[in-house]
């Protein structure tokens, strides 16, 4: 590699390392916000209830499976009723309500952050970070 190319590569690498430092600083600022701390506390409290966490995960998995089937025109209405009943039971639990409330606040906040990044760089942050192999490839 010619010497001048070494220089270009070094500048690019430096800038990329600086970008990762800036990403870390952004994460720390998010982590210090009251919105994130409230979510973290609600999440940690919820996780201490093993049975409740298991029910919530099971509900989310069944819901996702149902939505996938429904998006292709299928889906058993009885499963829809069961899911609805389970959801009503889950949101009766204070820990779940608190978790969902703090999560909603956090999502609104983080979407604002991601929207700023997407708008400034000219591409969608969330789509770029989506796992490979998703339906939009």
């Amino acid at each position, binding site marked *: 590699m010619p010497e001048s190319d070494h220089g270009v590569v070094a500048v690019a690498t430096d800038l*990329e390392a600086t970008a990762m430092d800036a990403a870390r600083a952004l994460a720390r600022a998010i982590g210090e916000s009251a919105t994130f701390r409230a979510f973290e506390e609600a999440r940690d409290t919820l996780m201490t209830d093993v049975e409740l966490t298991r029910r919530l995960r099971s509900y989310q998995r069944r819901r996702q499976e149902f939505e996938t089937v429904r998006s292709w025109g299928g889906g058993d209405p009885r499963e829809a009723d069961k899911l609805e009943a389970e959801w009503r039971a889950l949101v009766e639990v204070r820990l779940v309500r608190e978790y969902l409330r703090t999560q909603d606040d956090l999502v609104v906040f983080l979407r604002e952050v991601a929207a700023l990044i997407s708008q400034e760089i000219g591409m969608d942050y969330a789509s770029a970070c989506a796992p490979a192999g998703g339906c939009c490839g």
Partner: protein
Amino acid sequence: MTSAEDKSAVLARARDFVGVLKATPAGQVLAKAVGRAQGDPEVQRLRERLRRAVDAFQQAQRAGTTDEEQIQAIREAQAAYQRHPAVGELFGAQMQMTSLLRSANFVISDLLALDFGQTVRSAGGCCS
């Protein structure tokens, strides 16, 4: 509801992050490619056609009435859009930036113990 103080502190760090991203070679190539694609009326027309096809499919998906014709319409609109040279250039530039964004997302998500990219995805899921 996030306080104005927290919001301002976090958005300032987000702007710093974006500033560095824009200065990278990938950021500079992307800015040029975005400018070229946005300034080209044909690209805008093809993009709008694709957006309308995706919207129609999503509406049908919600109603549970999707059909093969709608999927075909998306495929055709997508192919026409992707064939445009300015779009090809844009995709190439986006791929370079994607690699940087994924690394950054890993750093952010690791510190927060939450997938930042996944959390901010629209409720509509993929393709939206």
